[in-house]
Structures are given as structure tokens and as C-alpha cells.
């Protein structure tokens, strides 16, 4: 499938992959969900919404979804593919894959520490 022009994304001085998602502010959560969904393969907007709802239990509203998509595309973490109809699919870039991997690894470290401390001090079923 042919790629669309992404000269804007290339021209921008993008932050390093590990720092990329840190610049998203309140869109960091939706951006992580989108990247995680696209890690499986290319998807258009509605497919992203349904997939994220299925694996995370969160339904991203259209405005939030597209604000996050536009930022991800601007940072070069995803790229838009040519649309055959009015639906345009998006694909994870290698920079996006690296950023997602580093971001999730950092989240896992926090989760591991939290779970370990919980199990050491609290008797939870």
C-alpha cells in the first residue's frame, strides 16, 4: 500500500522516541492506546475505536481520537496510508514502535514496583 507524503513530519525536529509520548500531555493515555492498537496492524478510525474498547474497556470519543492521531502523525510515530474510500488507515512507524516499547516498559516497571509493594504490606485476595 502506498504511503502518503509525510514531509511535514520529517521536517519537524522530533523528540527522541523515549520522550515522544511525554510531550502529549492529557493525550498521552489515548496516544498509548492508539499505538498499542496499531502494534497489531494498520487500522482506520472506527476500527481503532472498536479495538481499543475491546482490549482496554475505554471508548475514545471521536474528537479525542483525532487530536491524538494528529499529534502522533505530527511526531512521526504513526503514518497515514492512502485511503481507498473516506476511511484512512494508519500504521505504526519504527519510531512509534520504539517509543511505545520504551513507554510500556517504563509503565511495567512502575506496575511491578506497585504490585510488589502491595503484596508485601497488604493482604489482598
Amino acid at each position, binding site marked *: 500500500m502506498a504511503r502518503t507524503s509525510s514531509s511535514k513530519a520529517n521536517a519537524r525536529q522530533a523528540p527522541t522516541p523515549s520522550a515522544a509520548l511525554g510531550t502529549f500531555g492529557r493525550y498521552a493515555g489515548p496516544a498509548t492506546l492508539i499505538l498499542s492498537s496499531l502494534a497489531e496492524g494498520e487500522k482506520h*478510525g472506527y476500527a481503532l475505536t472498536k479495538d481499543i474498547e475491546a482490549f482496554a474497556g475505554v471508548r475514545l470519543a471521536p474528537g479525542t481520537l483525532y487530536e491524538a492521531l494528529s*499529534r502522533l502523525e505530527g511526531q512521526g510515530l504513526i503514518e497515514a496510508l492512502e485511503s481507498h474510500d473516506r476511511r484512512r488507515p494508519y500504521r505504526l512507524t519504527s519510531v512509534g514502535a520504539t517509543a511505545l516499547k520504551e513507554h510500556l516498559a517504563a509503565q511495567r516497571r512502575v506496575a511491578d514496583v506497585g504490585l510488589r509493594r502491595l503484596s508485601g504490606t497488604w493482604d489482598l485476595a
Partner: protein
Amino acid sequence: MRWYPKTWRARYGDEFSELLTAELSERPRSWRRAADVAWSGVFARLTSAGLTAHSLEPHDQVRAGLATLAGALAVFLVFGTALWSQLTIGWQWAEPNTIGTSAAMVAMSAVLLLFVVLATLALAPLGWSVVRRLGRRHGGGLVRPSLLLGAGLVLLVVGARHFGNGWPGTGGHHWAHQGLVPGGVAAFLWALTLSISSYWAHPGALLSFPPAEVGWMIVSPLAIVCAAVGVTKIVRRLDMSPRLQRYEARLGNAAAAAAAAYLVASSVWIVDGGPGPRNLFHAGAIDTVGLAVMAAAAAVALRTAHRACHAGTALITS
């Protein structure tokens, strides 16, 4: 979709409409979705104006920032000169009896003069670039905003010169002869900002005015909007070199700082000035409203100028 700016609609409009159609067929009504779309649209507009933390490319950031800055400064100056005009009329009849009002007036006059210098320095190269583009017939996107700007300016100059004849300072103490503020300038700016008036809240009193003057109070803000929109469109569409963009951004930064200084001086008058002799320097509700509008415009100007300046430097160094 109208919530979103045109450039955003051109890029994402089709696919976004498709997603909305699918969402609507699944869940016809959702206030949360409606609010989300509206807020995201407003946010996209703020972003395209260079006002959010989500930065654009340096080239776009400078243009968006300068255009927004021009609009914010236009609003600031309309309200700012309205306050200054009121003080000028007062001082034409009697000297203020507080240091606060005197100092504010002198500082405001000095900053207004600085605005004139900065505007000349900023508009000269832009005007020259527009003339060159139009002369070479490469100014397709510049013709309409140039006409809009020209029409607005002509209307403002002709109208303000005509209605300036009714300046309340005429016949007062001849401050104009002391050389501080020429009476013609004070009268011109008073007529230019005649629409900034508390009479709008008193329709009965307003109807006792000559119909032509009321007509001017309605038409002059429209002419100001025409001129301001013309300038912002030109800034957005004009192809500027990186050096010119950085130059304009630096001047914009200086203008925003001048706006902040003017705001402080205006506040000194309202807070510390007092009504003065014969109540000539009384600060009314319209002045407080004007100050609030100026504060908002100055905040926007400072934010966009800072971002545009930063992006302008990045353009040169990258």
C-alpha cells in the same frame, strides 16, 4: 465539522465524518461525544492560532503566531487608545491632580509612540513584499485581504477625520500647543474609538445622538475588523523568508512587551488615579471592561509572541 479550522477539515474532514457517521449509527445521541467534538474543534483552532502547547512546525508557528498577535494587538490598541483618548480630553481641560494619572498618561503616550515605531518597522517590509508579489502578479491569495485592509483603512481614516471635528477637547486648555500630543492626533484617535462607549448600555441616551454619529459607532468597529482580518490573512498567506519571519517575530515580542507596559500604566490610572478636577479623569465601568479586554489581549499577545519568537529562532538555526 464547523468547529474545526479549514486546514484541519481539509486533512482529516472526510475520515472524521466517516467515523462520526459510524458512531451516530451505533449511538444516535451522546452529549459526551458532542462536547468532545466541540472542545476538540476549539482546541484545534487554538492550536492553528499558535496558542496551545502543541507546537506547529516552526514555519507555521511563526505565521500563525504573528497573525494571532496582529489580531490580539488590534483589539488591545482599540481599547487602549479609547482609554488614552478619554484621558487626553480630560487633560485638555485641566491638569490631573494625582501623580498616578499624570504618570499613567505620560507612560501611555510614550508606549503609544513606541507602538507607532514598531508598527512602522514591522509593516514596511511586509508591505513591500506584498507590493512586489502583487506587481509580479504572484499575489493571488493576497489580493482580497489587501483590498479588505485597504477598504477598512480608507473608511477609518475618512470617518475619523470627519467625526474628529466633534472632539470634546476642542476649546479646552491648549495642551496641544505645548507639543506633547497634537490635538489632531487626539481628536483622530477619539473618533476612531468612538464605539468604545458606555452609551450602548443606555439606548435612550444613544438615540439622542446625531444619527450619523450613531452610524459611525456601528460602522467603525466593522472597518477595524476588516483591517485587522486583512492584516492577519496577509501575514498567514505571505511567503516570508526565515530571516524576515524571525525579524517580525522579534518585533512582535517587543510589541507584546509594550502592550504589557501599557496595561500596567492604564491600571495605575484606574487604581490610583482618582476622578481628578471636575471629574474629568473618572474611571467608569466601560474603562474597567476595557482594561479586562486589554489584559486578555495582552496575555494572548505575550503567549503567541513568545512562541513565534522561539520558532523564528529555530527557523534560522535549523
